[in-house]
């Protein structure tokens, strides 16, 4: 009987979606489950940090980590897991590139905390910021981890072996990645696994409805546009990021008339995913007058960073709003 695969699953700044997709993928796959020995999985099992510390180095076969690095505690945990694991996988968009929480990098962290704890309407005591040390009513001292000034993807902190893209990765993607890992034929380190090597348009059923030339006269917002779900969304003026995003999700969003928002992240040749997205979207806006272009962009893309860096800002070349450090 072959030894079971020792797996650790951990979550950082996470919404829980990756956990759901993992369970979704393997919950009925007895052959896979029966071959796994889970040594650490805080969301579901009562392991503690000490249990991991006790393990010999590299005794975990695969550590699957999702979520972005937001707290000091995350840094400690992922470094620990790296030491103890043979292979570390960045699971999902947050671990791979920062994910949606990465958009916080557009603001100073104090602005973010202030918004959350002081400005947002609440029944709680207002203006109480997270305190690193406090005493409970029962007199116990508790510590709260420190918030990092910027959100980081996993590979900014530790060496990552493979990436599984998606927000969350679809069950198919996860299973395909597992298949790849268990095949014995490991792809080159730092590859994205489980997904396609080409852009989403290839697997999108609306791709074949495109006219000879994809050119638009205006960029539209989905909230005030009637979308024809049987035709390519880009051609209808909706900024769909399919052409610039890695495929592998089976085009699940455009398939139901919703534009791709880029959760499967960049392709191998991209230097900066957002800049590439800017390039193709602007290129197909078929206007030549500067004022007309400005107007079309202001109407159609009032928030470029939110559109193109929704999942990838911390992994972009500039990573943050550079003006944040101005006051220092």
């Amino acid at each position, binding site marked *: 009987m072959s030894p079971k695969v020792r797996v650790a699953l951990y979550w950082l700044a996470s919404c829980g979606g990756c956990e759901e997709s993992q369970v979704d993928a393997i919950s009925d796959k007895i052959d896979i489950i029966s071959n796994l020995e889970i040594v650490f999985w805080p969301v579901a099992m009562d392991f503690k940090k000490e249990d991991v510390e006790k393990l010999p180095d590299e005794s975990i076969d695969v550590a699957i980590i999702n979520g972005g690095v937001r707290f000091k505690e995350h840094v400690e945990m992922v470094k620990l897991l790296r030491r103890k694991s043979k292979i570390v996988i960045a699971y999902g968009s947050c671990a791979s590139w920062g994910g949606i929480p990465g958009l916080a990098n557009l603001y100073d962290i104090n602005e973010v905390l202030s918004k959350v704890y002081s400005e947002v309407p609440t029944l709680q005591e207002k203006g109480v910021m997270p305190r690193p040390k406090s005493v409970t009513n029962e007199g116990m001292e508790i510590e709260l981890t420190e918030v990092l000034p910027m959100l980081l993807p996993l590979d900014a902190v530790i060496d990552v072996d493979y990436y599984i893209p998606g927000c969350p990765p679809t069950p198919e993607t996860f299973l395909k990645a597992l298949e790849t890992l268990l095949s014995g034929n490991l792809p080159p380190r730092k590859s994205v696994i489980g997904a396609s*090597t*080409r*852009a*989403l*348009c*290839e697997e999108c059923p609306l*791709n*074949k409805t*495109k006219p*000879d*030339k*994809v*050119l638009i006269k205006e960029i539209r917002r989905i909230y005030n546009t009637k979308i024809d779900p049987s035709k390519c969304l880009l051609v209808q003026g909706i900024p769909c990021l*399919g*052409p*610039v995003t890695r*495929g592998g999700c089976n085009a699940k969003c455009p398939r139901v008339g919703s534009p791709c928002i880029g959760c499967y992240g960049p*392709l*191998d*040749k*991209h*230097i900066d995913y957002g800049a*590439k*997205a800017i*390039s*193709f979207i602007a*290129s*197909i806006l*078929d206007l030549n007058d500067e004022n007309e272009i400005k107007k079309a962009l202001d109407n159609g893309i009032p928030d470029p960073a939110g559109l193109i860096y929704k999942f990838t800002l911390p992994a972009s070349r500039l990573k943050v709003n550079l003006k944040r450090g101005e006051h220092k």
Partner: protein
Amino acid sequence: MRDKDVRIGVYICHCGTNIAGVVDVEEVARYASSIPGVVVARHYTFMCSETGQNMIKDDIKNLKLNGVVVAACSPALHEVTFRNAVKEAGLNPYLFEMVNIREHCSWTHTDRRLATEKAKDLVRMAVAKVKELEPLEEVKAEVVNSVLVVGSGVAGLSAALTLARAGLTVYIIDKRPVLGGFVTRLVNIAPIGIRGREFVKPMIDELVKMPNVKVLTNAEVISVEGGVGNFKVRIRQRPTYISDSCTLCGYCEKACPIEVPNEYEGKLTMRKAIYLPFKEAYPPKYVIDENACTKCGKCIDACPVKAIDLSVKERYIDLNVGAIIIAVGHEPYEPDKGEFGYGLTRRVITSLQLERLLDEEGPTGGRFIIDGKVPKTIVFISCVGSLIGNKTTNACSRRCCSTMTYDTLKILSKNPDSHIYILYRDIRTYGFEEELYWKALENGVVFVKFEEPPKVEVMGDKIMVYVREATINKNIVIPADLVVLFVSMTPSNAGEIVRIFKLSRTADGFIREAHLKLRPAETPTEGIFLAGAAAGPKGVMESVIHGAAAASKALALLLNKKYILREPLVAKVDEELCSGCLICVGMCPFNAISVKYVGERRVATVNPLLCMGCGTCAAACPSGAMEHNGFKDKQILAQVRAFAGVVV
């Protein structure tokens, strides 16, 4: 290229003291040799000299260089020189990068230290790029030694003659049933009064006798594919119901019951649906106006030689040609009904109609009469359709002033008592045609300058012309017997042509030349040339020159060549990465990108013969699948990243 496989030679030119006087060339060479991957760095007084070039060649052979950087003057001057030197030494000429440290450095900066630092930075950036360059092979395009000339006006005829005399196979087509183009409607071409039909006759006679010339009338291009050296053109020839047996007897014309306005007579008279455009017409046979013909068949019965067959269908002809010359000419501006009184009375005519009235072979036999009377007071209004009128292009139509002044002389020679007023915005009788202006003045023609357009009112027998004379700033009324509107040249079917040949138009609607000054008679599309009024208002002389120019350029391209070599700095699709998103297809103004299938997968593909190498598609490609040879992402990024150590 990994560092240990890289063997780059760097050569810094002094250019005498042009560079060395400001830049410390020794320092730059020393710096270059410290860059990983650079195995030799030299500096020399004149790198472009034989000695300098030999230096490079020897190093390539002896040191097994696989990349060369020359820091000297602008690549605009010597990139080709050094590429050839590299090629002669046995290294692929595209593993070479030239750095401009003269025009962009020593000649524009004064501080020696800063200029030297800049030279070092630029060398470092070039070395970084060369490390990423790949060998490229020029693209061989097979050449067909024939040319298609579209349009048989003076420009097209001039082009066709030049080509045919050089021995090329020439196809000349015209959408009309006869050759000769627009000048056949003119009888009084300034400044020497040429009769258009007589002018083109010797050209046509010579052309049609040549065995390497094929003439197709009633023919239009409906599609074009391929690229320079090998265009595949599909032509539709409308039915020519009348065969070459036609003896020009004219019985068919007598029998024909249909009458329509005769455009060869400025629509002043009528013609039949079956007619002979003019007596010098080539092909020398009657033609049928399909729009007017009712196919009643009376002409067939009347024809003694059975030359007419109304059942003939249109046919399609496919041609393979190496180059195309577009000479589709222009159409005169047609004023609207009511525009300056046009169409409201027979006494307001266009300049074209004036031509017919002055022609001995015209509808009035050359007697200059209108409505049976000799017009005494004649008003010419210039710039109609160009600067004034219902539709304007705001561009001067070039020939009208000369034509106007010349026509006054013709009129005065017939009716010396005429009072002629020329209402003008500007008088542009350029070159030696200035003489016409003075002659007209001497002969009593009154020149009235306007800034606002004149107004024309029909009042019974007279045409009242109201104009504000701009020099004396007074309103003038002229009761005219005849008003002649001098109309502009407009781009005739430029829209269709531009669509079919994938060209573009100028601001005033004519077909665009590649560059007004540096590349006349060319379009931006390699292998497609442009001649005559199709490119903008022109006179006969200018059109003839333009046609010959276009033909010369086509000859330079094709004559005695089996193939042409195109620079390989073109776009290419990495089909493994292409997702078939089609973003690139819409980016190319040269239609060089199309779609193909790799198994089930749709991918983009670039025709290297059509690609002009701008790289716009590569920048737009969302996957990075589209690459621009010689300017690939990794090559440009290498330069950008090497920018990091810049010292200012």
